[in-house]
Each structure stands twice: as structure tokens, then as C-alpha cells.
């Protein structure tokens, strides 16, 4: 499943549509398999995978930017915006649809992040990382202090509905699991199409040689601004999905350590394969859950060592393990 969901065949086809058709088919298959598996799984497992998929979306956004050569250290900002949008719409506006809330989260995140896109598109390296970090910490500070947004404790969110239907107690976890996986699958496929598109290829070029891109007639700033906006949408989507399943939102969503975890997943995954992002996100969730339960003082140690291992020996991420060649 993973192997095909990400690389186009080496031989070019007359039209890429059949290849994308195959990717879509495999994506749908993967979703179907997971849906069945989830039906028979214990609640803690479906919850874990739900969190992995939702968090994975945020890291997918980071991958969009990493393909262009920058690493954002402040995705917590859009993650929190998406989450708070969903939470506030639920509590204050009575809007509770499980499909509408993530969409709203993504759109509001884009609205708030978009004005910063032209500015951020001019930065690279440490300064890009620091500026995104600063913005996310400003957001954190605001969220902590604004009591109308719940202050430092945040607030709880009730159970969403789906297309007008109330969700039964016994099945709400599974339904949200399906919704989250569905959104993740759709976004993953869209991401794959985008990465393979002309704009996606220009992004890769920006990563390696910006000067040549400009000399070939391409716009580096436009490419990076667009990637930033796309990452914001993914982040907001993920934030809303997390809030729906978690039932709670708090300012910590925007704290730099949260952003750090999303970066960790993106580094672990690499930017070659979309599926790798979700696999890596699942790995993080598994390590987090099991370590918290059995070795509460060592899960960060495990993550740190794991990260060092990946940086040293798998610099292109785990996706490079199954992606053919070095393109894409």
C-alpha cells in the first residue's frame, strides 16, 4: 500500500491520470482496510490511530514546506487556530457537524496565516524557523491570557454530529475514526497529486537551487507562499479533527514543544512519501502512549534517540526506505 501510494512509475506514461488513478485506488483500499480493522479494534487503538491521522495532517503541511527547503517551527499556531475555531464554533455557535468543523478549522487557519505568507516566503533557514516560532508563541501567549477563549485551562468540547445525525455513545469513537481517516486519505491523495504537479516540481527545485528557478522564469516567493498557505490549511484541519476526538482544547496546542513534535514526525517521514508521514505519526503516537503507560520518564529520551538515529542514518526519512530513486 505504502509503496505505491507515493511514487509514480519510472517510465513516463502518456497521461499521468492512469497512474494517479492507481494511487487513488490504493488510497481507497487502504481506507477500506483500516475501516474494517477499526470496526473490530478496541477503543484505545481506534483513538490512537485517529490521533495519528489528525496529527499526521499537520506534519503533512510541514512536508509541503520542507520540500521547498524550509522547516517551520511554528505549525502549532495553525494547529491551535484550527482547534479553537472548531471548539468555539461548537460551543458558541452551536455548529457541530463533524465534517464542517474541520473544514472551518482549515479555512480560518488559512485566513489568519495567509497575510504572513508573502513575508515568510522571503526567509530561509534559522530565520524562517525562528519567525514561525515567534508567531506561534505570540498565539500561545494570546490564548493563555484571553479568558474569553478559555485562558490557560482551555475548555471542553462536546460530541459532534454527522450530517445532522446524533452519534450514538457506543459508536462515536469509531465514527470519528472514519471521518478523520477519510479526511486524511483525501488530503493525502490531494497532496500526492500536488507533489507530482508542475507546482510541486518547482517547489523541489526551490529547495535545491533558488537562483536557477528565477533564471528559468519561476517565482520562488510565490511557490513558498503557496506552500505556507497549504500547510496552514492542513494544520487547521488537523487541529479541528484532534479537538473533535479529544473533546478538549488548550493553549498548549500552540506551544513550541507541540510544534516540535510535528517537526519530529516530518523529519522521521522524509518528504518523498505521503504515506510515510502517517506511518511516522503513528509511530510517535505508539511511542507516546506506551511510554507514558510503562516508562513515563523515558518517552522523550526514546524520541530524542530515535530522532538522532534518523538524522544520522536515514537523512531522507523513513519514506526513503520504500521510495524508488531520489526524485519526487
Amino acid at each position, binding site marked *: 500500500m505504502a509503496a505505491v501510494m507515493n511514487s509514480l512509475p519510472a517510465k513516463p506514461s502518456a497521461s499521468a491520470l492512469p497512474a494517479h488513478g492507481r494511487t487513488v485506488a490504493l488510497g481507497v483500499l487502504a481506507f477500506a482496510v483500516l475501516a474494517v480493522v477499526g470496526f473490530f479494534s478496541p477503543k484505545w487503538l481506534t483513538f490512537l490511530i485517529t490521533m495519528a491521522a489528525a496529527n499526521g495532517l499537520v506534519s503533512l503541511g510541514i512536508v509541503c514546506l520542507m520540500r521547498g527547503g*524550509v*522547516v517551520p517551527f511554528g505549525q502549532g499556531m495553525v494547529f491551535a487556530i484550527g482547534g479553537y475555531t472548531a471548539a468555539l464554533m461548537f460551543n458558541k455557535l452551536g455548529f457541530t457537524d463533524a465534517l464542517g468543523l474541520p473544514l472551518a478549522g482549515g479555512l480560518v487557519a488559512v485566513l489568519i496565516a495567509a497575510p504572513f505568507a508573502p*513575508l515568510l*516566503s*522571503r*526567509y*530561509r*533557514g*534559522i*530565520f524562517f*524557523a*525562528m*519567525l514561525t*516560532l*515567534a*508567531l506561534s*508563541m*505570540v*498565539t*500561545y*501567549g*494570546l490564548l*493563555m*491570557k*484571553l479568558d474569553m477563549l478559555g485562558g490557560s485551562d482551555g475548555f471542553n468540547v462536546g460530541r459532534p454530529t454527522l450530517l445532522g445525525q446524533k452519534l450514538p455513545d457506543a459508536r462515536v469513537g469509531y465514527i470519528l475514526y472514519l471521518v478523520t481517516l477519510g479526511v486524511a486519505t483525501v488530503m493525502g491523495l490531494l497532496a500526492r497529486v500536488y507533489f507530482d504537479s508542475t507546482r510541486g516540481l518547482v517547489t523541489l527545485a526551490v529547495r535545491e537551487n*533558488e537562483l536557477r528557478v528565477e533564471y528559468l522564469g519561476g517565482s*520562488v*516567493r510565490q511557490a513558498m507562499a503557496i506552500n505556507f498557505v497549504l500547510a496552514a490549511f492542513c494544520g487547521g484541519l488537523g487541529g479541528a479533527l484532534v479537538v473533535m476526538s479529544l473533546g478538549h482544547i488548550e493553549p498548549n496546542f500552540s506551544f*513550541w*514543544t507541540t510544534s*516540535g513534535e510535528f*517537526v*519530529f514526525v516530518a*523529519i522521521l517521514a522524509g518528504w518523498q512519501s505521503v504515506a510515510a508521514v502517517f506511518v511516522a505519526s503513528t509511530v510517535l503516537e505508539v511511542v507516546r502512549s506506551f511510554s507514558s503507560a510503562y516508562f513515563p*520518564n*523515558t*518517552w*522523550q*529520551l526514546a*524520541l*530524542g*534517540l530515535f*530522532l*538522532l538515529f534518523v*538524522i*544520522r542514518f536515514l537523512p531522507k526519512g523513513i519514506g526513503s526506505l520504500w521510495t524508488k530513486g531520489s526524485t519526487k
Partner: protein
Amino acid sequence: MNEVFTILIDGLTYASWLFIVALGLTLVFGVLKILNIAHGSFYALGAYAAASFVGWGASMQWAPAYSLVAMLLAAVVVAAVVAPLTERGLLRFFYGRDEVLLVLVTYAMFLILEDVTKLVWGANPYYVSEPYSLFGNVHVGVQTWVGYDFALVALAVVVGLLVWWGLNRTRQGKVMLAVIHSAEIAASMGVNVSRVYMLAFSVGIFLAALGGAFTAPMISVQPGVSVGVIIVSFAVVIIGGLGSIEGAAVGALIVGLARSLAVHTAPVAELFSIYIVMAVVLMFRPEGLFQRTQARKI
């Protein structure tokens, strides 16, 4: 008028320990070109070590004044033990790689040290309150301040001057300045760049630990301390300019005053005032106030 005075003094005291810590951060960046996320972790190690050393001193019935020596010793021990381990055992395998990659390596270090600290000292908070009353109280106008806070300011000034003198007036320091300008050229002139890296990193860690050790009496030393410190230190070095000593001083003052202003006049802004300044500086003068490095911009 009293209000202004209070704000200034509060800002100054906050800026003093921040300067010591940020100085270490900016020095490490200047020499090794590494922006060290784990810098806050070394601060925490210094604080914990100070808690332990002061505790031992107290249990052996030493006079309270010895706690100052204990705190200094704590910083020295942390630097002497952790610096070689980290630099030789880990960082040097990544020298020359992309600067953001190195940040990620230090992020991994931060994660590891968070748990190492918890494993060694446990998760419960430590209180090192004995030294805090060593300098009595100071009355300025109608306000009363703890003398220790002013002692910290004095320490910051001493540290700043020592580092400046060390860099600009000693031979080793000038060699370090050469490496700051260009490690490659320095190496081709026979400088043992590895040794300079080691030294700079050790001094950097020492400064972080020193800041931690001497701030320990003012805070509760517990897991998570490093998390807040690093982010404020980043703000300072970005505002002041990466790699600049004057920048660390001015940056610390700006951050200290911004925070103090917010706390006293607009508490809502307390947490984000610092980061707004950081963001604004990044937007308009990304190299910081005292330019050393170029911000890569299109």
C-alpha cells in the same frame, strides 16, 4: 514615577539572569554556528545541580554564604562533565551540516536531557531558598526589593565584562574571534579549531548552568523549566543579533523591560510581549540589532 521605577528595576533584574544565559547561547552560535535548543536544558541542569550542592552544604551545616560557592561549583561541574560529553560524543558528528539540521540535533538533545534530568532528580520540585535571603532587603522609595536580585545584576555585569575581556584581550579569545569570523581560514592558519569549538561550547554551557544555578533560589526547580528559558533566550539573541555580545546585553534588557512593562501595565500581554518584539525584529531587521550574521532572504 514610582511605577516607572518599579518597571525599570523589575526589567533589569529579569534581564540580568537572561543576559548570562543568552550570552552562552549567542557565543555557541557565533563560534560553532549552532542554535542550541538544548541550551535551556543546561540551564536546568545548573539549577538542579545547584539545588543538590546547596542541599548538601546545608545538611553539613555550612554557613549560608557557602551556598554561593556551591552554586558556582554546580555550574562548573555541569560544564566540565556535560560539555565534553555532548560536544565530543554527539555534536561533532554533525559539524558542517545544514544549520537547521543542527538545530534538530539539539532538539533531540533537549528531549533526551529532559528525561535524563527527570531520571536523576525525579519529577518533584526542588526549592533552594536559603541563598535568596543572603543579601537582605533593599528599600528604594516605598518599594522593597530582595538584595539577591541586585546581586544578580552585579553578577551579570561581571560575567559580561569577563567574557568581553576574555574574547578581546586574551590570546585564546582572539583566536576564538578568528574562528567566529571564519573557521576555515583559521584552520588553514594553524588554529586547532576543534579545541576552540570545545572551549566555546564549554563556556556556553557554563554560562547557561551559571544562569540556572543562580536563578535556582528564585524559582521552583522542576521539569519543564528548560522549556520556558530556551524560548525567551531565543527571543533575546534574535533581537540582539546572533553571535553578538552587545546584542545579548541589549536584547536581554529589551526583553526584560518589555516583559516588565507588560506585567505592570497590560498583564494580558505578559506572555506574548516578548515574542511580538521578536517577530517584529525578524520582520524588519532579521539580523538583529547588532548585525553579525546575514539573514538569508530573497
